[in-house]
């Protein structure tokens, strides 16, 4: 395995692993805070049990996210010293801000997890809010840094030297808004549907179980609105790509030739040798319409740049279709559930909806991984789009296959353990007989419940 490929693979595995935990670290605290709030208001123990379970889940996942994030911050230098030497002064700023946000998150997570008996209810509730807010903030800062790699700005290169560095301008790059919006919504949608899916699966067997009903409710409250909004932010992202990163969009759409009235290409096998995509469904004018909101607009194809500057078209196209397909599924299911809830229907007894939500459990996360494949593979061969090639950024250290395999094994090991612990610790039904098959209307107060702590 060539060293460049090993380095890219190690970075890819590290990011793909970390992103799962980072995303849960953003959205899970929101659910835990909502559950705690409902417990404080209604006094029903189910919500306290939920808050504590989700807090436990957050503890395990946040810890793995924190250490895998540490690995990433070092890997920037271990694998890409050339990139960091160039980009450090320009995009170090959002990383530093992320450091602070992460610090705040860690502090208040400590207060939240260990502070049930030690701080006032109000302080405890606000500690949870601080975790949720700083979690979202740290995610946004990191994505801003990535957005700069796609739309680099805020510096000039004169005679090979970086001059006129403006870190604020670098943060305000063209990709920052579409990417952060898309990713933050993705975090809530993916986590919300993952949790909702698990409880929907359990509700299929036991539709009256109050614990799973409440859990489903809160999870959908977080996940469904985000899933519905996601196609809109996706539209923003696609229009950004059309203007600023046309090669990535061309690869995502397997559009080989620049053309007016470009069709949307779904599926198929892109063949770079012939410049054709076989077995694909083509919707005429749709790509022009989506990219520029004009059916006759010209969309740049891969032929706009020389062949050696093309990313791996088939991988980018496949990832893009996968992301869009799964995201659309989540949005439709979210609309369905929202419509039922608006009609005051009983979600948990609608078996087809429960099946659809259960099926959605892994989809948000698969869509996120696929979306990052589009962003990262679609930018190749550049590490900083149009400025620095990935091969010029990699470390000179030989034998990179060894750390790649080591970290891959480490993450496989951790992934299995975390999955098993979550299964055992978080997902099992609580053993409280009166919650089983007992339907409690939302908002009703249980007399004598809520002793706390």
């Amino acid at each position, binding site marked *: 395995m060539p060293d460049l490929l090993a380095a890219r693979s190690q970075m890819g595995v590290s990011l793909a692993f970390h992103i799962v935990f980072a995303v849960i670290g953003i959205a899970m605290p929101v659910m835990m805070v909502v559950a705690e709030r409902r417990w404080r208001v209604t006094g029903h123990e189910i919500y306290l049990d939920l808050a504590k379970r989700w807090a*436990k889940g957050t*503890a*395990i996942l946040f*810890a*793995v996210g*924190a*250490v*895998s994030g*540490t*690995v990433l*911050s*070092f890997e*920037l*230098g*271990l694998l890409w*010293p050339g990139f*960091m*030497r*160039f*980009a*450090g*002064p*320009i995009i*170090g*700023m959002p*990383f*530093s801000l992320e*450091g*602070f946000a*992460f*610090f*705040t998150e*860690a*502090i*208040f*997570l*400590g*207060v939240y*997890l*260990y*502070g*049930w*008996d*030690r701080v006032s209810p109000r302080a405890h509730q606000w500690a949870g809010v*601080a975790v949720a807010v700083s979690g979202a903030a740290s995610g946004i800062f990191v994505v801003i840094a990535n957005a700069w790699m796609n739309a680099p700005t805020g510096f000039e290169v004169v005679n090979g030297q970086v*001059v006129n*560095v403006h*870190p604020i301008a670098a943060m305000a790059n063209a990709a920052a808004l579409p990417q952060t919006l898309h990713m933050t919504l993705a975090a809530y949608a993916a986590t919300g549907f993952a949790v909702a899916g698990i409880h929907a699966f359990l509700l299929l067997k036991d539709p009256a179980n109050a614990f799973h009903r409440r859990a489903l409710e809160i999870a959908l409250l977080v996940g469904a609105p985000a899933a519905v909004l996601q196609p809109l932010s996706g539209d923003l992202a696609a229009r950004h790509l059309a203007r600023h990163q046309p090669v990535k969009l061309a690869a995502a759409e397997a559009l080989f030739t620049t053309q007016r009235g470009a069709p949307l290409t779904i599926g198929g096998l892109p063949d770079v040798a012939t410049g054709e995509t076989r077995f694909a469904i083509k919707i005429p004018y749709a790509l022009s319409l989506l990219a520029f909101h004009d059916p006759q607009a010209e969309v740049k194809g891969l032929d706009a740049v020389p062949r050696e500057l093309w990313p791996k078209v088939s991988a980018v196209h496949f990832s893009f279709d996968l992301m869009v397909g799964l995201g659309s599924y989540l949005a439709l299911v979210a609309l369905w559930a929202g419509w039922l809830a608006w009609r005051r229907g009983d979600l948990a007894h609608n078996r087809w909806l429960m099946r659809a939500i259960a099926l959605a459990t892994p989809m948000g996360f698969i869509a996120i991984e696929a979306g990052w494949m589009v962003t990262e593979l679609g930018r190749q061969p550049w590490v900083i789009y149009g400025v620095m090639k990935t091969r010029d950024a990699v*470390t*000179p*250290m030989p034998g990179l296959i060894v*750390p790649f395999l*080591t970290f891959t094994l*480490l993450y496989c090991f*951790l992934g299995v*353990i975390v999955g098993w*612990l979550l299964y*055992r*610790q978080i997902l099992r039904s609580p053993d409280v007989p009166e919650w089983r098959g007992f339907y409690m209307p939302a908002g009703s107060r249980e007399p004598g419940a809520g002793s706390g*702590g």
Partner: protein
Amino acid sequence: MTLADILAGIIFVALNAYALLGGADFGGGVWDLLARGPRQERQRELIADAIGPVWEANHVWLILAIVLLFTCFPPAFALLGTRLHIPLSLVLIGIVLRGSAFTFWRYGGGAHGDREQRRWGLLFAVASLITPLLLGATVGAIASGRLGEGGRGTGDGFYATYVASWLNPFALAVGLFALVAFAFLAAVYLTLEAEGERELAEDFRRRALAAGAGLFVAAVLVLVLALRYAPLVRDGLIFAAWAVPLHLLTAAAAITALVALWYRRWRAARLAAAVQVSLILWGWALGQYPYVLPPDLTIAAAAAPAATLRLVLGALAVGAVVLLPSLYYLFRVFKGRHPSSVIRHPS
């Protein structure tokens, strides 16, 4: 003093905080591994209770130092990442295993004290032992000036470029020193955490005294090896104008810590031990000033453009307004006057 000097100083403050807080968490792992006697299980519980609420926050000091380093001194970060790829990767594996094992141990839901829990505890403890050793070895590699072009010794081969700088007697002695220093800090802090449980406090008092003596031995070892292997450290630590006053201060802090331990003045011991370890670290920093990575890369040469440095300094000021009160709150809640035994069962 330039803007770059100030930022280098701030990065070092973050490293200092990491050593005092995160370092002590590593030290806790060492005492977990060495727990024995009639109160073996109680010792382990105390360590876990002491670390539990704060280890994530303590760990972030390292991340903060790293992001500030690559923002403000990118060439230094690039050189570190390249030449110290191997030990830093091993440190990372240690950090990952330690953090996850601790959380699995505490939150994994295994029955109290069962074999599964013990296995996680063991992994946590072993990772706590190896990580400081390697972290110290990278410090040794930096301080001895072997990351510069002149420091490669024999040739340009893989071993000379990527291994020799940290796999040598001096660097490993620094690693040992770091390990003992962290264990010393942890034992001193734990005497205070055990407040109210006299015998438990005595357990850690004995351990702290032993580690204090061990620290002295390790320091002598580092100095002797520095004479032969690390001329830069030798010149900095022994012949510089500020060296003698600094050593006297460090010695005073060390003696104060041991005397306070002897007379069971836990709070005074904690303060003195923290001052002692900090002074040693600042001795290293002063010893290699104005170099960020001796002998080639100075702070000025490695610094990012002024626009970046100014902004980072501003962000640090704003960030500190959020961070410092939050940190104060965290430590007041969990390390205040309440005995830590209250939080034996995290929820």
